[in-house]
């Protein structure tokens, strides 16, 4: 479903991703772990289409189509979703207005009809209930005044509403309390399906006890240095990343 081939990315002349290869099949949940600064968020941003990065070479294929040539909104319409490590506050934009605009913009790009208001409200309520987003939060400006954990939950709620085909979660568990981790994990698990793929970036094996991955990849120095099954996460907890330091260099 998602295939990254030989991806090389730099920012401000500095190389961040090096000959990165990664494959995630449909229905698969792949986890990425790795030391701070190894390039995990960079990878997430490049897949989502952030401008600041310079793609030197390589491809990111979603079902065979190279998305690197598409704008971020076109990628979203193709079914890509990024839950941000730091969701952005947007003062003055009512959350509901934003959710409706996002949903309808994607539908329009796909040639689908706009949702009726009752249908939209129904879907928002369903996604909101699932992620314990209070109606009061939906009445505020997008992410403004939300706590760190509330922002993360709001991002996952958007995922539930937009029903992407491939979702990247960048440290969605960081800053979440114990209950919230479970709520978010339940939200993700509810969306797991044979057609959908996930890339879950995390520092904590604990999340992977709730969202049990099919594969775990270790990223260091801007490349995938090791891949394995779910047991790799607990192994990393014991060994740390020391042994990958030289590979990264």
């Amino acid at each position: 479903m998602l295939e990254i081939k030989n991806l090389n990315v730099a920012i401000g002349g500095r190389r961040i991703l090096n000959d990165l290869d990664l494959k995630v099949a449909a229905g698969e949940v792949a986890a990425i772990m790795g030391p701070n600064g190894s390039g995990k968020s960079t990878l997430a941003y490049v897949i989502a289409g952030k401008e600041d990065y310079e793609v030197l070479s390589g491809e990111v294929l979603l079902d065979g189509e190279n998305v690197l040539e598409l704008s971020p909104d076109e990628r979203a319409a193709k079914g890509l979703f990024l839950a941000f490590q730091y969701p952005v506050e947007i003062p003055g934009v009512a959350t509901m207005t934003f959710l409706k605009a996002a949903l309808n913009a994607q539908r329009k790009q796909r040639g689908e009809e706009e949702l009726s208001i009752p249908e939209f409200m129904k879907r928002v309520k369903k996604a909101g209930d699932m992620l314990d987003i209070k109606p009061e939060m939906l009445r505020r400006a997008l992410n403004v005044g939300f706590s760190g954990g509330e922002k993360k939950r709001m991002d996952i709620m958007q995922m539930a509403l937009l029903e992407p085909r491939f979702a990247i979660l960048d440290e969605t568990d960081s800053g979440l309390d114990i209950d919230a981790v479970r709520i978010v994990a339940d939200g993700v698990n509810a969306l797991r399906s044979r057609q959908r793929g996930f890339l879950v970036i995390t520092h904590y094996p604990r999340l992977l006890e709730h969202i049990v991955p099919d594969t775990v990849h270790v990223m260091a120095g801007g490349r995938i240095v090791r891949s394995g099954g779910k047991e790799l996460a607990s192994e990393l907890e014991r060994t740390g990343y020391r042994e990958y330091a030289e590979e990264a260099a």
Partner: protein
Amino acid sequence: MTAQIIPSRTAAEAALAEIFASAKAGLPGSGAVEKLREESFAAFARGGLPHRRIESWHYTDLRALMREALPIAPAPTRERRAALRKAAAALPANSLVLVDGVFAAELSGKLPEGVKVTSLSAALAEDRPGILESLAAAWAEADDAIVSLNAALMRDGVVIDVAPGASLAAPLHIVYASVAEKPAARFSRSLVKVGAGACLRLNEMSLGAGGRAGQTNNALIVDVGEGAEVGHTLSLTDTRPGSLRLETFLVRVAARAKFDSFALVTGGGLMRRQIFKLFAGPDAKGTLRGVSLLRGREHADTTLFVRHAATGCEGRQAFRYILDEESTGVFQGKVVVEPGAQKTDGKMLAKAIMLSDAATMNSRPELEIFADDVICGHGATCGGLNADQLFYLETRGLPPPEAEALLLEAFANELIDDIGHADLVAAYRAEVAAWLAARARSETRSVA
């Protein structure tokens, strides 16, 4: 040889002198009013049109920008009046209509209890006690060439009296209708007196029933009585290029009163709005907010003079600009805290979003504090749209123009939402949406 520099009069200045000479006999008022007009015009003529070397006009060189002075609008024709009557029927209740600056009582509906309205011309003609004094006092506060010109040529306006303690449920609207067939000038002055403890919402708007680009010089003087509460809104929207709008707003806030004002500026050619706000009594609150949306070669100047002459007053000033293409925004805010005005709490913030490299923003906040126990601050920001916010919206599926429009709308609506009256908020939000839609249409055209 002596070198005496007498700046030659510009064509517009010469034309204004002629207009005054031929119009003054027909303008309302005699005796003391005539004298006030003569003195005001003389004061204007001494300095002429304000120019870049006058500090408060530095960024709006009216002497260079005002190429001509248009004749005063003639009385509307019968057909125009009929057309206007139709348009006026759709106006909200409590609308006071000024037709090319002249109050049209027949177009204005019945007024609620506690409000008395007359025309300024009637008040001047009958020498109503207090009228001249309140005009002169206003003039003293606003020592400015454009205010002098307005005093010399003011033709009409409304005089609104809100009885002490009266509380008006629905807003009162002053509607400026322009109907002259040829480009023309309008000079109006209105006085609003809000009695102690009264509660009023006042909205100023335009009705462009087929008028052409013209010149307006309007002044509005609002006296907010002790403990009164006044909400004011102004829509200065004009899509006709080449118009000149000079707007003076004077507000005096008495003890414990609350005053809140919002203005939306879009379109037109050259706009200068000057606000003189005086905190005359202790423990009052006064907020001034404004949003200017500009494109093409439009120029909009908002210049504030806020004077704290009493203790414990809270002043808030927040102005936002969205500048596209080759437009120019000007914000000047001068806040003076007089020696006795302890415990003053004043904040001023101007923000501009630049959508084009060719647009210009001139911001000049100024504080003059002569009291020691005060909290005052000001700030100004100027830049493009926030790239992280844009990216976030785009990753959710919004195409860049939509993401941009959503952020721009939010930027403007944040100040609009504080108006605190649902119908007015909806009306002003709709004007912002219309401006953004027009911008989107012209962008698509220029891409195609």
